[in-house]
């Protein structure tokens, strides 16, 4: 509203955001990103010393221009914390973000400019919208904050509503509770696009939708990606959807990145034992060939006190003694794939047995 006096600037749109480094340069480079949350009442639990949740514990990856990078993992693995760190909604303890060659937060790319280029869509479509604003106002809010005149912002909002399949004449004046879940998620997508971002973080954005609505929104996301040259970071627990929409996929376990590679390779030939188990955990599609035994037992361990060495060794069928002592590093494994497992790392003391099958040894913590 404060912008109404400042409308003398004649620009119809915000200044466009140029592609700086060319197509080969990653859009976003993430280096050593960490975030630990201190537990307030740690002393009460007799933990001794300060207990921290290692939500994200030193991850490195690149998001390439115009790709869709899928992120999978179980609850508590740090997917959503990673998303919030990338969006700078929470501050990292350590690590660096480089956006198209410029360090985020530096003088060349201040946070405010960065946030225009990176937008986010959340799972809960209702909680994401202000219930007291019409959807048109919600979409126009961001551009106005960034200096677009009110009238131009409203026009932009209406254009975007039309673009995401909501007829402006019918929907612009409605409040969030007057829309269905699928329609609200379209509004959230329109709002995210209002600042012409280059990277869209979709954190379980379609997970709460019914299958038929989910398909519509996935189609829409793909259309928008082509039309606006967008890059997506697509976080989901639904492996089928991730496989469908992603070019590359990243797998997280207890705050660490354990495998990354092209979607096709990762789903056809998963390298990490956890990725293998995760993919095998999908329910059968054939009632005559149901799953006979669960690939993994128990729940993921608590990220407050993660297991030593490889964090997966407590549930891994292929774990050996060395796995509890030595932390694997993310190593190249052909064709842009990287995996963090001692079985793929040379000279670690992990003895590969020919069959590649289970060889359990007593684990001494």
């Amino acid at each position, binding site marked *: 509203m404060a912008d109404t006096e400042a409308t003398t600037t004649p620009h119809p749109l915000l200044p466009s955001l140029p592609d700086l480094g060319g197509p080969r340069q990653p859009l976003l480079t993430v280096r050593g990103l960490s975030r630990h949350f201190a537990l307030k009442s740690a002393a009460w639990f007799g933990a001794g010393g300060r207990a921290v949740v290692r939500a994200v514990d030193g991850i490195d990856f690149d998001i390439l221009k115009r790709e869709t990078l899928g992120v999978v993992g179980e609850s508590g693995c740090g997917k959503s914390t990673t998303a919030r760190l990338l969006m700078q909604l929470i501050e990292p303890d350590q690590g660096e973000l480089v956006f198209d060659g410029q360090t985020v937060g530096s003088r060349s790319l201040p946070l405010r400019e960065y946030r225009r280029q990176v937008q986010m869509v959340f799972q809960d479509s209702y909680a994401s919208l202000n219930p007291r604003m019409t959807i048109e106002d919600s979409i126009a809010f961001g551009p106005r904050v960034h200096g677009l005149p009110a009238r131009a912002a409203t026009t932009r909002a209406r254009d975007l509503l039309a673009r995401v399949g909501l007829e402006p004449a019918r929907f612009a004046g409605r409040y969030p509770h007057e829309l269905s879940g699928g329609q609200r998620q379209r509004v959230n997508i329109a709002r995210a696009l209002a600042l012409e971002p280059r990277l869209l973080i979709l954190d379980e954005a379609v997970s709460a939708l*019914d*299958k*038929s609505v989910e*398909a519509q929104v996935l189609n829409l996301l793909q259309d928008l990606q082509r039309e606006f040259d967008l890059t997506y970071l697509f976080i989901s627990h639904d492996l089928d959807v991730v496989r469908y929409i992603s070019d590359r996929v990243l797998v997280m376990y207890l705050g660490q990145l354990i495998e990354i590679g092209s979607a096709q390779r990762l789903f056809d030939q998963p390298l990490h034992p956890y990725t293998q188990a995760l993919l095998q955990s999908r*329910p059968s599609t054939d009632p005559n060939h*149901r*799953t006979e035994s669960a690939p993994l037992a128990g729940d993921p361990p608590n990220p407050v006190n993660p297991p030593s060495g490889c964090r997966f060794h407590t549930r891994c069928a292929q774990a050996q003694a060395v796995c509890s002592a030595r932390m694997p590093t993310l190593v190249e494994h052909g064709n842009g794939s990287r995996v963090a497992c001692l079985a793929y790392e040379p000279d670690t003391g992990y003895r590969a047995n020919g069959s590649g099958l289970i060889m359990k040894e007593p684990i001494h913590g």
Partner: protein
Amino acid sequence: MAETVQEAVPLASAPAAWVKLDDLHVDFVAPGQAKVVHAVRGVDLAVAPGETVALIGESGSGKSVTLRALMRLHAPRTTRMRGRITIAGRDVLALSGRELSAMRGGTVAMIFQEPLSVFDPVYTVGQQIIETVRRHKPMSYAQARQRALTLFEQVRIPSPERRLDAYPHEMSGGMRQRAMIALALAGEPTLLLADEPTTALDATVQIQILLLLRELQSALGLSIIFVTHDIGAATEVADRMAVMYAGQIVEQGPAAQLLAQPRHPYTQALLNSRRHGAMTKGRRLDTLAGSPPDLSQTVAGCAFAQRCVHAIPACTGAPPPMQTLTAGYTVRCIRLEAMAAEIDAHRCIDSDTATVATG
């Protein structure tokens, strides 16, 4: 269980059906308002002892409302129910308050999506299970604790003795889900109602819980009604499947048959979205245009007609009757023969592409 059956007034219903719904209607009325939502509009369902039936549908299809109606969990003040619910030979809608409480937990138990809302946070999980055990069968505290321990072993909770003394928040998600199943089994029910019990779980935990349910079902001879929107989860547990749309069952039959050859256009659309090859990178997803009808309005004819690619004018005329295809397989659609002819025409083309794709 044997006593309950003896006490019960024998009814004319088929003896094989342990649970039977006849033309069940559930309407919700807001107090002081004229608006009535017809959430369930004539559901017929029969479940045999030891059988698992999955009720599948999208949000608002009436699957959870149907499930809750079986235990009369809807607030009487705002709910109107018609039709007949028979469980173990007893007419549920005619039960007195006292009879109803004996049935809840005793004959019929329910598990939910969110175990944290089932357990009271200020008591240990063991205390709550012991209380339930003693509520249904008079026994000493020590005996009841022993029984609770057995239940925990049955649902495969590791170090069960120690876990009995844990508070709900001290357990992990999968463990809480197991504890909730143990709680449901405390009254030795013969019918287990499951309302999306694995939806909130991680993939690696979900499959464990589905396998546990299957195991318990065969060990205890439970009948299970499993409500879900996840066809994968249903495939792992169900003997039969019933697909719901707009408050009605539109297709019902043995799981293998229904999944292999869905007959109703809605089931086809629902299953096609996840069929092998439907989600191929770069290929647009098949979508279903439109949305389900507003159930506060009267639906003339077939509720799916507006969105159906096979619809003809007759579809919006009269409500389609349930048609029996083979014994135990029913479909609510008047276009079955016409569609079957179309499918035959397409089949040769489809099989050609299928061999190319797999080869």
